[in-house]
Structures are given as structure tokens and as C-alpha cells.
């Protein structure tokens, strides 16, 4: 009895796109698809940066993924040859389907075209990623820091940001104070 209930809850909250969607993506974008996987029922596609806005527009307009659920990034410093990965979750309200799309980015070219033209919601997501990971979004209307203050140096969720680096605006350790030099040495990444 309880088993059935669990199953039903799972279906209600987590329907993921099936393999046929991935097939269609592979058909359309061919060599730009770097890989795909499925774990815990969740479907994921990894694609080249070049097709990023085209793929997003196609998913939104032709496949009914009208909702940008989440846009974030990961720093795989020392774990993978390509350091960054931007991760997006798309959701289709009409079809109750989800899809995760990953875009690997080299450190030297940590930049993607913006999605703000397709989803207004992308605005703050992209500002947050810029703020914390230092990945730029070309064409974003107002790419400022979202959470941290303008005076902040570096991007704290990068794995090479010093764990003990502190950049207070006032109080001990502030810029201009005695501790400011060591503070800057530590903070610069």
C-alpha cells in the first residue's frame, strides 16, 4: 500500500524526459552533443557551447520546455580536464517533463551567450553565476554582482578561492587598514 503511494508521489513530482527526446536532440545537433546519461530516472545531455542559445530556443519553442527551472554552474578544478560546467534545468509545464543540460567551459573562455532574451528568469541566475563563479554571459543587459558587494574581489565559489580569505567592508581587516595587504594577497585568484 505504502509502496504504491511512494511511486505515485515520485511520478507526480519528478517526470523526466524520455530517451526519444535525446534522440531528437542528437539528430538535430549531431556532433554538438558530447554525451548523455540517465541516473535515478533523471535525464542529462552534455552539449558544446556553440549550440547553447539555439538549443535553448529549440527546447522552448519546439519541444514545449517553457520553464527555465534552474541555471547554475560547477567548478571541476582538478577533477576534469574542462574546468567549468554550466548546468541548466528545463521544465515543460504542458508535458510534465524535465531535462538537464550541461555545457562544459574552458577556464580561458568562461563565457556563454545569455538566455535573457528567452527567459526573463535567466537574468538573476546569470548574475549569480557571474558573481560566484566568474563565468560571463555575453549579451546580458546588466551583468553586475547579484549577492556580493561591488568591492568584492574574485569569485568565491571557484575552488581556488582561498577558504580563509575575508573581505570585510568595515571593521577589522578592512581595506586601508593594517591587514589590508595580506587580505588582498589572499583574496586575489
Amino acid at each position: 500500500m505504502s509502496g504504491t503511494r511512494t511511486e505515485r508521489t515520485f511520478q507526480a513530482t519528478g517526470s523526466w524526459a524520455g530517451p526519444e527526446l535525446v534522440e531528437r536532440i542528437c539528430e538535430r545537433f549531431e556532433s554538438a552533443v558530447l554525451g548523455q546519461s540517465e541516473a535515478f530516472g533523471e535525464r542529462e545531455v552534455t552539449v558544446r557551447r556553440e549550440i547553447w542559445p539555439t538549443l535553448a530556443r529549440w527546447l522552448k519553442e519546439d519541444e514545449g520546455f517553457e520553464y527555465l527551472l534552474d541555471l547554475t554552474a560547477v567548478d571541476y578544478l582538478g577533477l576534469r580536464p574542462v574546468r567549468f560546467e554550466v548546468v541548466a534545468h528545463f521544465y515543460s509545464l504542458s508535458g510534465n517533463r524535465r531535462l538537464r543540460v550541461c555545457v562544459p567551459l574552458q577556464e580561458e573562455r568562461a563565457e556563454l551567450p545569455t538566455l535573457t532574451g528567452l527567459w526573463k528568469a535567466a537574468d538573476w541566475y546569470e548574475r549569480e553565476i557571474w558573481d560566484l563563479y566568474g563565468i560571463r554571459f555575453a549579451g546580458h543587459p546588466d551583468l553586475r554582482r547579484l549577492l556580493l558587494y561591488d568591492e568584492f574581489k574574485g569569485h568565491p565559489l571557484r575552488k581556488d578561492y582561498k577558504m580563509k580569505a575575508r573581505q570585510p567592508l568595515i571593521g577589522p581587516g578592512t581595506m586601508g587598514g593594517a591587514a589590508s595587504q595580506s587580505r588582498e594577497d589572499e583574496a586575489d585568484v
Partner: protein
Amino acid sequence: MELSPVQRSLELAEPFVTTKLDKVLGWGRKYSIFNYPFVTACCGMEYMSAACSRYDMDRFGAGLPRFSPRQSDVLLVVGTITHKMAPVLKQVYDQMCEPKWVVAFGACTISGGPYNNYAVLQGIDQIIPVDIYIPGCPPHAEVVMDGLIKLQAKIQHQKHEV
């Protein structure tokens, strides 16, 4: 009817008490705390519980929160203070008139609490003076009452400029 010595002295006594001005001021001030709740995070829930009818801070004369620093004399700092928020807190403190007191409510305001990272101020005493520290994550309402009573004792016994 014969009056007892005590009754006689009561009958004779004039209707006044003797004290010191300092003491009266302290007594008055400790029962008329107007607090400014600077609430930024989860501790705010426990502040609300302490302030509302179940625990009722009003019993100690601290029932009227003011949302302007110029009308308040106790700054209750409740919740995580980030480096970005720190200048705002300092400005609120500077806007309050003397005499004023500061309560650090919860682990975050005392030491940064669970957060020792790039974003969080490691204790508000780095930027403003603190009178009472109320520990806990979040502090139970009874601990808040205890802190409030200790603050009252401090106000009562300190020197008041006249």
C-alpha cells in the same frame, strides 16, 4: 485600641521614599525598553515567539518594538550579519540616541555561528559594542527572557548620566 509600634510608625510616615536619582533612572529605563529588532535570518522566528503572547516580552516592559532606530534604545541584532549587511547595521547603531544597549541574539551575531566563510561577519562585536550575548542556534525563548533580565540588571546597576 492600642497601636503596635509598626502601625504607629506607618501612621506617622510621610508618603515618600528616599533613593538616588541614578537609581530611579535605572529603574525607569530597565522597564521601558524600546527595542529595535534588526532581524535578518532564522533567529527572527524565535524572536517572534519570545515577543508574542506565549512568552510575552511585554512582561518585562520590552513589548513595544520600534522600527526606527531614533525611537529605540535597545538594538536587538537577530540573525546572520553578512559583510554586505555590516555597514547597514553600523549605521542603524549610529543613528540611535544615547543611552543605548545592544543585544547579540543567537550564535550568528556572537561569532558567525555555523558560517565561517567569505560572506559572514564573525561576530557583530567586531563593529559595534555588545552588552548582552544570548547564545543558541536559535536561542530558546526562555534563554531570551534570561538575557533580557540580565540586561535589565545591567541597566539598573550602571551609572546614568544626569
